[in-house]
């Protein structure tokens, strides 16, 4: 990017990635709406609101009406879910574009037009796609290996009291940690690819170098953000439990909607913080020759 393309530095320079972040979260909302709409429409058509109290009855304790609606709408719901998963997959792939734009924005010290970030993202899109495919396959293989090992371990320690439960559980915990570490590697590689305009293999090498050099810092940042996300979801669950939409009152629905969207904003912000850290960590990495 040429120096002249940069916008003037403003007091909120610290949020130079603001528009990209907004695009990133907006894309998530649109993607979610695309997945949710067919399901909500099917449930509504199947009678989820077939009551003098609207859809309140479908949320009543015991789930009598809800179960009936789901039972009868199952073929349509199943089709809607399948379509939703395809949509989600396509949107997940397309989601690499706003992610790339956000990473691009995080590499810039000053605010830059959003279209430039998207242009840059489109340029590295094949690289981001290759990285995602490679590391998702690696995660799958790793989980499969761990499952097989846990199953064998479970059989070996069967009938040995608590050990028969704790040993496979421990292995699964290790497996989960490994999967998350591969997630860290993936984001570091994405950051390197965007920052240094690298191809997939070079980005992966760069990310491995970063991880070797700053494993503690990277993991700490990643797990702190993941922890914060989980905390936000749990807090929202606790708050909405108190709001109890199974009781009458439109304000309850509005309040629950607000709480949920705040929780999701927290998730987006946590992701933003982690990606910012990932970009910073990859900045000092010596590039592969």
């Amino acid at each position, binding site marked *: 990017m040429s120096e002249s393309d940069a916008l003037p530095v403003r007091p909120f320079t610290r949020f130079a990635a603001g528009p990209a972040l907004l695009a990133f979260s907006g894309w998530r909302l649109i993607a979610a709406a695309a997945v949710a709409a067919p399901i*909500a429409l099917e449930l509504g058509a199947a009678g*989820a609101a077939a009551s003098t109290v609207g*859809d309140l009855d*479908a949320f009543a304790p*015991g789930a009598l009406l809800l*179960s009936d609606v789901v039972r009868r709408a199952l073929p349509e719901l199943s089709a809607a879910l399948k379509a939703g998963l395809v949509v989600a997959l396509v*949107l997940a792939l397309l989601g690499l574009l706003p992610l790339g734009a956000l990473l691009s924005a995080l590499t810039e010290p000053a605010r830059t037009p959003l279209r430039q970030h998207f242009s840059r993202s489109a340029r590295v899109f094949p690289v981001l796609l290759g990285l995602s495919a490679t590391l998702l396959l690696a995660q799958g293989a790793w989980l499969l290996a761990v499952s097989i090992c846990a199953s064998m371990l479970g059989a070996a320690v069967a*009938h040995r009291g608590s050990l028969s439960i704790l040993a496979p559980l421990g292995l699964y915990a290790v497996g989960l940690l490994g999967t998350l570490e591969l997630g860290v590697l993936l984001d570091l590689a994405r950051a390197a690819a965007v920052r240094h305009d690298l191809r997939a293999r070079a980005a992966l090498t760069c990310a491995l170098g970063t991880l070797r050099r700053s494993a503690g810092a990277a993991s700490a940042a990643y797990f702190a953000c993941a922890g914060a996300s989980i905390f936000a979801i749990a807090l929202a669950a606790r708050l909405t439990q108190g709001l109890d939409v199974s009781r009458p009152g439109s304000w309850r629905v509005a309040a629950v909607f607000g709480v949920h969207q705040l929780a*999701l904003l927290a998730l987006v912000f946590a992701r933003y913080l982690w990606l910012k850290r990932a970009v910073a960590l990859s900045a000092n990495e010596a590039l592969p020759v």
Partner: protein
Amino acid sequence: MNRTLVDAVLGTAFCALTWPVLFATRAAPHAATPAAAASLSAHDAPSEPEKIASYTILARLDAEQHRVQGSEVIRFQNASSQPLTELWFHLYLNAFKNDKTLFLRSPFGAGRSGEKAHEYGYVDVKHLRLASGEELWPNADRHSPGDPDDETDIRVPLPTPLAPGARLELSLEFEDKLPEIVERTGYEGSFHMLGQWFPKLAKLEPDGHFAHFSFHPHSEFYADFGDYDVTLDVPTRMTVGATGVAGATRSEAGRTTIAYRAEGVHDFAWTAWDHFAEARSVVAGVDVRVLYPSGEERSAELELDAVRFALPHFNELYGAYPYKTLTLVHPPDAAGNAGGMEYPTLITTGGPWYTALTGTRLLEDVTIHELGHQWFYGLVATNEHEFPFLDEGLNSYAEAEALEARFGSGSSFEAFGLSVSSSTIARLFSATRGGDQAVSSPAAEITSFRNLGALVYERTATTLLTVARVYGEAQMRHALGSYTRRFRFQHPTPRDFLNVMRRELGADAEKALASALLERGTVDYVARDLSSVAAEPAAGIFDAPNGRETRKRGPAPEPKKYQGRVVVCRHGALEFPVEIELLAEDGTRRRAGWDGRGACHAVDYAGSSPLVAALVDPDHRVLLDDDLSNNFVSTRSPQTSRLWERALYGAELLVSGAAP
């Protein structure tokens, strides 16, 4: 047998049977007349059973070869009105002898597991002698009647007829080869579960015929009451649980013998394993013992808690549990098919170790269900082969009632802000099979295991829950309690059950129960044709004292009044009284009643605001209603804000987790 395990395999199948005719034929010998039923009371129930067949057994377990060497003495009395020329023996273990037996030859696999046997098993009778020493076994039939491939139902001719009231002592020697657990019985590693493991007399009916049958995968059992003295000889390392009270224990040369005595029961089961941990508690004066795989303390604790609630609860509702002990056996995961089964004073539970973390109440559910069988099978000893709904169905109601009394609306599942009740689950599965077959069909005539679950278990429960909600929950509890007390230690039929319901709940309730249980009765309430208009002064030509008067249509007077009407129809044979809720535009609600008789009923409305919606059965009393969505009619578009909010949030979380 456990209904949750049955629920798990519910699916599709169909068959309509002419059951009412069969029912009338089969029930005739035992049917009490309505007049007789009117005079029944709990005081008529005996305080202990008539002991027709008592057993003394010595059994030695070879835990390595999975064999049991047994000797058995049966003391039998001809309590019927006819002389007996033959005896019938159930050799249930032969159901697992090869793939051609009635139990295993189903193309769909065997019973609830749907699995074929991996290792086969059998019981060989080596001798069957009278007290005089006369050998009877050589004259016994070699196979079940009309089925050369099955050896589970064997006729043994008697050399001389046994007169009514006369007694007989028989001695047997037998050897069991246990199967790898197929269903209920067998071994898995060093775990051994022995149910239906010894040669057993079929139930003698009052008219002198034996209620004998081949072991069908859908069927359970039926036997006379008696006393059981069973001495078990097992490797000393084994922990043993069994029906009855443990007496003298002796250990010698690596073997231990334990003498068990169970009085007034109709079966005996036991388990032996060298990896059992044990928990004990005294509940309502009963010594409760839980045997579970070591490491699964949490499961044992939940099961014990379930008994702490349900045993006093059932005592109060259905009469006091009369035995001193209750043993719960939680089999290891690998032997899951031994779980979810009932025997006198011993029940098997089950579920993997993580069950308690999933939000389901599977452990409590299975424990309370099997405990309920101590009444609906153990004490009220109905013919499980001929009338499976009388034990599994009524017990599924008792289970749902107890679970909801204990856990409320989240009695089946509670997590992630969603609560699902046991009655919802019962209705859900019941509705999938609606009127496929009569609920009261004999086990062998039910066309699939899934139908067995949906109809025998869940539709019976849903029917009783509906009657309870419509005619009174307290009344239903009392009625069922009257039935269990009246027929304690007896063998009632469907007619006996219905007679008690008629006396306790009235003719309408009994009619609905009979239709739903015996005749494939269904019901679906439908609301339609809602209309509402502003009331206007009548126009037209009217005869008045001063001659004819013509009144023209004019504007409705202020404040406006509205008239409306909604039509409610009932499809199906079942009749239940229902309420109809009418909603006006200003939010006011009112309810009108309909006795449910007739095909359709018009509900008229008059009020200061237009009628905008109507809902049949707003409190969901009629759980048997096939389709709840057509109970509602409205002139407004549906309000689905909650639905959209939840769907969007769920999708947002999915996208957050799955997307980059």
